[in-house]
């Protein structure tokens, strides 16, 4: 494949580099905020579930319902629908700030389910043993559930981050920036397929790096693995 003049220009003007940086930055920030909302939500989903450490049927049903609704709306539609929320929270429905708000709204329910499934992996007996020692519910969450599922939570965070990176590319179509936006406006709309492929390549590299670092951290923190 030939590298066209336009790709060279994009590189020389630092547009591609900026795109990489913006993608990473949006992904990291959105993941962070998605976890700030999604982690407690996931914990709540797990703890209040039937058979959980503090079953609350109605709360669990409501939370589960809301999460499911958000998870079943295709991301691109959710984004458009949530533009007013972005305007309300960060004062604009354009640009990266607004995109991050929408990414967080879309990703938080996903993160919540991720967290919930990680916590489910903690053996019931481990939790019961702690209960038998007179551990209060909140301490059970902070000292047993979360530390015991840490490797799985980290793995989940990597998967979430990669998903959010995918979302961020889509955000490029409705006013976000980053590699997605470059691929759409320079590659697709101006018919330079090599620009698209360069963006794809860069995205793959970013995903691989995230995956590799994440897996290493998860492995290093998992004390169940025999050294």
């Amino acid at each position, binding site marked *: 494949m030939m590298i066209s003049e336009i790709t060279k220009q994009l590189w020389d003007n630092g547009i591609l580099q900026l795109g990489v940086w913006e993608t990473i930055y949006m992904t990291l920030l959105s993941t962070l905020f998605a976890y700030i909302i999604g982690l407690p939500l996931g914990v709540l989903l797990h703890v209040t579930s039937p058979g959980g450490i503090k079953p609350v049927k109605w709360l669990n049903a409501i939370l589960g319902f809301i999460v499911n609704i958000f998870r079943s709306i295709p991301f691109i539609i959710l984004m458009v629908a949530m533009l007013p929320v972005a305007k309300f929270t960060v004062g604009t429905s354009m640009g990266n700030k607004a995109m991050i708000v929408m990414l967080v709204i879309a990703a938080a329910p996903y993160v919540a389910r991720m967290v919930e499934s990680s916590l489910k992996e903690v053996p019931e*007996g*481990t939790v019961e043993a*702690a209960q*038998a020692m*007179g551990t*209060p519910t909140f301490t059970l969450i902070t*000292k047993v559930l979360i530390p015991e599922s840490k490797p799985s939570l980290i793995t989940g965070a990597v998967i979430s981050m990669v998903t959010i990176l995918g979302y961020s590319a889509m955000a490029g179509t409705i006013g976000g920036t980053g590699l997605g936006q470059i691929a759409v406006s320079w590659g697709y709309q101006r018919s330079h397929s090599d620009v698209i492929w360069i963006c794809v390549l860069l995205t793959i590299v970013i995903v691989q790096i995230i995956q590799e670092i994440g897996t290493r951290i998860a492995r290093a*923190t998992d*004390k169940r693995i025999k*050294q």
Partner: protein
Amino acid sequence: MIELKNLTKTFRVPAGELVALRDINLTVNDGEIFGIIGLSGAGKSTLVRCINLLERPDCGEVLIDGKNLLTMKEKELLETRRSIGMIFQGFCLLEQRTVIGNICFPLEIAGVKKQEAKARAEELLSLVGLTEKAKAYPSQLSGGQKQRVAIARALATRPKYLLCDEATSALDPTTTNSILALLQEINRTLGVTIVVITHEMDVIDRICHRVAVIDKSEIQEIGEVSDVFTSPKSEIAKELILPSVKAVGQIKGGKKLRLVFDGESAFLPVVSDLVLDCRVPVNILAAETKEIDGKAFGQILLGLPDDDRMCARAEAWLQTNRITYFEEA
């Protein structure tokens, strides 16, 4: 003292209701090792889990030192649980914490200072003989070692009671023996009252003072281990205690006598003296001999020759030597 009064527990299952415990009454005295034995599904785990309210009974009372756990507020219940240690078949350690971290856990919960907790944990580690494993993770330990850590953890807050749910069922015989010896030592030296759940008669035999036999969600029999051993009353107790003796009872032949030893005499001299004194050849059809608290208990099933005079001689000898015996049908 642990008192369970009229305890009933029902589980809701798809097929309807399942009564796991029916009208359980039992008292565990301070300082004793109390055994609860029964077949799988009898309700043993449910029973022991009712003692610290991991399972909430439908009705009845759970009294620990006279205080009813069922009417306690959450905070008081959590406090009470700290005076009741518990160990499990599956060890249930925190996999992401070191051995020492596991033992410190209940102390952290109880609000003990870090330095103090560490010192206490080290003390316990030496009690269970694992000092050199302090920094290891559970995944690096054997089953027996894991159970030792679990025992150390359960004892960290100096509980008065220790509940053991099938604590040795996942271990090989040698390891089982060492864990049982450790429990016995804890009972003797620290005065911890221990409740042992098991389906193995051998465990009861080795360390328990009293035993409750549970079957079909109900307690069938309860008493001193030596009594239940020498004269089991319920069918289930007989089945659990004398499986081999029962099987041999079906052999056809001459008269059969069951000699019962209640801790007064030793086994071997009796049989050999009987043979030598009466000049009666006997067949030992079955023998269940146990040593409980340093005394000899058990039963020997003797097959006598098909000869009335010889039988009469043997029985007369047993009577004069005050050996309890029964004629088997």
